[in-house]
């Protein structure tokens, strides 16, 4: 609701709107009424200490079955996506880069990516004209893989099997790049990454920034925000947003940590930085 400028009651919907979301996991309430508006073209950082509910937020938005919505809405393209299956959310234009991408033995990256792209194009195994052809597929991957410093051998490997931490995260961003979502949630994509990988991943995300993409970066540490500059920063503590602001809030957090709420730094420890 926005009544400020005109004084009259007009509903200005953001492109992606989380309204008073309450979520429980195994009977315990984790998110206690979270609201957030994200427009395409914007980058929002959601920051918070351990256990604040960051991963619950990201998983709930994508529809993971372990997270139970108590109340609230998430509106995107005129729909409350909370009623949709993960695959439908993806088709609508949502994407989640997982903090811990799972290893899927027996399915090659190539098969995985191709099937996902085809699903998005509406190919159901029948009308071959809808399926991506080999040439298109290669062309689509070539640029993105070079930005992410991934060589062709990735495509013939099983999904995330034997990938290093950095390779897994890069593979997530590669998926994002080829699926071209309108709302992307990056769940701790920076955690466990060496500084080079953070740069490659950030470069790839920055390339995708633009009027057609809204990004929600979920992170503990401020480090990644030096590479992907957010437009807005929100601090999540104990299942609630306790402060929101511009990019300067990240700098403030880097200096103060989450000390106002809990004893945890928002800056990565030096040892992690050096790795």
């Amino acid at each position, binding site marked *: 609701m926005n009544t400020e400028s005109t004084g009259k009651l007009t509903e200005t919907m953001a492109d992606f709107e989380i309204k008073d979301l309450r979520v429980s996991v195994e009977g315990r309430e984790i998110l206690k009424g979270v609201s957030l508006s994200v427009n395409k073209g914007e980058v929002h950082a959601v920051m918070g200490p351990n256990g604040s509910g960051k991963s619950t937020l990201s998983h709930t938005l994508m529809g993971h079955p372990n997270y139970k919505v108590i109340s609230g809405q998430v509106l995107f393209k005129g729909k409350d996506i909370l009623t949709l299956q993960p*695959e439908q959310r*993806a088709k609508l234009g949502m*994407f989640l880069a997982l903090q811990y991408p799972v290893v899927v033995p027996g399915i090659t990256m190539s098969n995985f990516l191709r*099937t*996902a792209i085809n699903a998005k194009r509406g190919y159901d195994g029948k009308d071959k004209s809808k399926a991506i052809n080999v040439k298109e597929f290669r062309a689509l991957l070539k640029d993105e893989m070079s930005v992410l410093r991934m060589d062709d051998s990735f495509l013939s490997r099983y999904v995330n099997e034997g990938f290093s931490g950095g390779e897994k995260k890069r593979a997530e961003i590669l998926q994002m790049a080829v699926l071209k979502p309108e709302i992307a949630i990056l769940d701790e994509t920076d955690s466990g990454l060496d500084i080079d990988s953070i740069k490659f991943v950030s470069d790839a995300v920055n390339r995708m920034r633009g009027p057609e993409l809204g990004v929600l970066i979920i992170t503990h540490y401020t480090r990644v925000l030096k590479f992907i500059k957010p437009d807005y920063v929100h601090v999540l503590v104990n299942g609630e947003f306790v402060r929101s602001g511009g990019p300067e809030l990240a700098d403030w957090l880097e200096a103060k940590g989450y000390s106002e709420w809990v004893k945890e730094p928002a800056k990565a420890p030096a040892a992690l930085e050096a790795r």
Partner: protein
Amino acid sequence: MAFTKSAVEELSSLHREPDWLRARRLTSFGIYEGLAVPDTKRQEDWRQVDLKGLDLEGYAPFQQPNGTAPLGALENVGATLRQRGTSPAVVAIAPELTRQGVIFMPLAEAARVHSELVQRYLFTGITPERDKFAALHAALFSGGSFLYVPDGVTIDDPLVSQFWSAGSGSAVLPHSLVIGGKGSRFQYVDEFLSADRQEAALASGSAEVFLEEGANVGYVALQHWSIKTWQFANQRFQLGRDSHLNALAIALGGQMARLRVEAILEGPGSTADLKGLFFGTGDQAFDFRTLQDHVGPHTTSDLLFKGALRDRAKSVYVGVVRVEPEARGSSSNQANRNLLLSEKAKATSEPILEILNNDILRCSHGATVGPVDPEHLFYLESRGIPHPVAERMLVQGFLGEVLDRIPVAQVREAVDQELAARIE
């Protein structure tokens, strides 16, 4: 319609077999008559096997010659042997293999022309005494291949046998005998098929494989009998010094399909890689009994049996690892992974360790039974892949790790296609 002594004699005459083989068949038949159907409550090796509904008297003893095997040329193979029932087999072998002394022919023919060689090995591994079905198999085996690869010969392209069952209501009991000479290297595939997916049959599909010193042998058995087939099959591998075996058993068909796989690691330093794959739908039941028998020192075995079951399909896996007193420095691994795709599908898994020498490097085992991993499903679905497609991909991926080991592209693709169709 029953198994009789005269049927054994008739079959032996049909194959124009030498006297020694006819005598062996008759001896085996005597053993068959003397043995009872296994007691599935009391006999350890037969526990959990569901023999309800099996009527041994209801089958014709063998399939009369009734036409040649369906043709469909395989590419990139060194030799093929196709046989339907007891009809004469069609054999094609690359001339250079024959020049190198490779022998590849129907077992019945080999019993005549390479009598001494066949006599020395046949049914020495799978003896008729072990149970009633093994005795029946030894008495009335029909069809099957004989493959002999001389010392030092390497064959690049795989050799393939296809055995077709065609004649509802009869026994179809092929037997392959494979001998890999010293330092030989080759891959061999046995494929068992039913012309009609609904025909009733009593089948085996057994193999005895001998690896001499330093031999490197790949063996694949693809069981694709009709869904109304009772199968009782035995595979036995005898490993000589420093030999290496890569074995893969694939089970797709059968109403109740039992397969025993035994690797006897006798030669010091021998290694066996044993893989199994099964996929069951409807009311199919599979029964696998494996034995990794470490007889010699410094022997290594690695076993992985993987399967997926849907509808009301069942599987029983019982795997024995035996480390014999002389087998110091040996290492073994055993794993059985089962994917249940419906609530009524059921898999049981039982490892049995018999360690008679504690000076071993490693002896590990593990079993899993469960549905498709929900985290995997979520991951694929979060990329927009619809649930049924995601599930199919995960099942194919699960089985694919083993399937990729089939050395003949066309056979691999055919299995892939069938799985894709049956998983949906």
